[in-house]
């Protein structure tokens, strides 16, 4: 057990990230257990888990630019955990939508995904993230080989793009927040484009 925890949280920086990224899930669960999610608790749970997924995606994609800009190589060790938290909140988001909005009817979920562009984009983002989570272990990195692994994990860029667009299309009129997310992602992806062009 202790060994497992040590592997999960190897150092202090990882502990910091783990605790802070877990807090929203704990508070959401705590509020849900006390019936404190407001007038439309299902909608609140779906919206909040979606936001948390986007925030974790932004944090994940911010790690490499920050590591290079601040010259803090230690940050790289947090990237996997941040990405896994994004996938974790993405799973909660998908579960909440499937359960509360579609009443766990697989047929309704598939039909919704094919008929509605914003659901399609959300589902696409999830399906792109799932194999990345599955291949996040050291053993999978070794098995795939560094280059192949890196190429596979570039799927996080289209996943983040799809997630941001998913949010933008969903909003009725006030697009400020979705645009803020899209802007942040554009900066983070732009940093990579500029760096690869310079090389």
């Amino acid at each position, binding site marked *: 057990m202790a060994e497992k925890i040590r592997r999960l949280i190897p150092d202090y920086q990882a502990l910091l990230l783990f605790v802070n990224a877990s*807090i929203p899930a704990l508070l959401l669960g705590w*509020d849900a257990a006390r019936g404190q999610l*407001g007038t439309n608790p*299902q909608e609140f749970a779906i919206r909040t888990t979606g936001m948390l997924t986007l925030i974790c995606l932004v944090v994940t994609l911010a790690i490499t630019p920050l590591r290079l800009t601040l010259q803090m190589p230690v940050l790289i060790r947090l990237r996997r955990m941040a990405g896994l938290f994004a996938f974790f909140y993405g799973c909660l988001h998908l579960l909440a939508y499937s359960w509360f909005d579609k009443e766990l009817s697989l047929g309704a979920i598939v039909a919704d995904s094919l008929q509605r562009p*914003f659901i399609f984009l959300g589902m696409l983002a999830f399906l792109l993230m799932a194999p990345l989570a599955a291949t996040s272990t050291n053993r999978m990195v070794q098995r795939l080989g560094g280059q192949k692994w890196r190429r596979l994990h570039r799927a996080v860029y289209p996943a983040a793009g799809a997630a941001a667009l998913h949010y933008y299309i969903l909003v009725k*009129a006030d697009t400020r927040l979705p645009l803020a997310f899209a802007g942040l992602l554009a900066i983070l992806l732009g940093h990579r484009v500029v760096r690869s062009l310079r090389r």
Partner: protein
Amino acid sequence: MMKPDSIKSNEITDESEYQQRHQWRRNFLRGAILAGTAATTTMLYRRLAVPAGSIRQAAGKQTGSQPAADGAVTQPMPDYASPEGESATDYDDITGYNNFYEFSTSKEGVAPRAKNFVTRPWTVEVTGLVHKPRTFDLDELLALGVEERVYRFRCVEAWSMVIPWIGVPLSRLLSLVEPMGNAGFVAFQTLFDPQRMPNQRSSVLPWPYVEGLRLDEALHPLTLLSTGIYGKSLLPQNGAPIRLVVPWKYGFKSIKSVVKIRLVEQQPPTTWSDYAPEEYGFYSNVNPGVAHPRWSQARERRIGEWSMRNTLIFNGYADQVGSLYSNLDLRRYF
């Protein structure tokens, strides 16, 4: 500084104790940083993820001390308007979960931001193709006689409530101004005053908010100019002091805080259908068979219930209003 030989050897901290103290200090610092970031994250979450209704409840029960309804309820509740086997939505939910973009685009943000909205004095100007144009003071409107009506309320976003409104049937007001023969539509307008409705400074929608009905829809006995809910005056977040209620149409047709009513010949512009014509039609009758381009309208979440309900054609008022649309292609004129 002491000379080295004046320090007794038993006063020198030994190596392991020094290490221990250093370790202890480092752990203390790390613990403090961990606690600090955790507190910050908790605070951020609490500030940013605010469930609808909770702010107002936390702010105290000022809603309970609202004055009683202006004007007595003169008519008993008509049977045809009361949903069967459905109970009215909680007052706190009706007054804490609102779409009212003039104040905020977040449903939980409307009530706190609309708290100090002043609704007296208030007049409603009725003009256009009428023989007797007239400006009504709020008290004159209430003097027309208010009735209680329990209606289903179906938002285009696929949630719904059951609301015990009080108000004046719109037909009563329209008969006083005597519409001309060529009047075909009724246009409504919300107050435009960015001082009092702060989000009108933003450009999320073109202001002022406008809505419209066909004249026969406006004259229908179900159509209400509401001044209150649960026997109390409307709160600002619900469209105080007077708002339209058209129970068989999506909620956005029931325009809030009305200041102008104009009778016109042609179909008037309406805010949402101008903003996104492929998503929101002029009619916007509740119809489970016509999906919004981005989501299904087949089912709805009734606030206060766990599972979803089937949405009913014309929101369950087909017997009363179906005949208005017998010659209308409801797919085309959604």
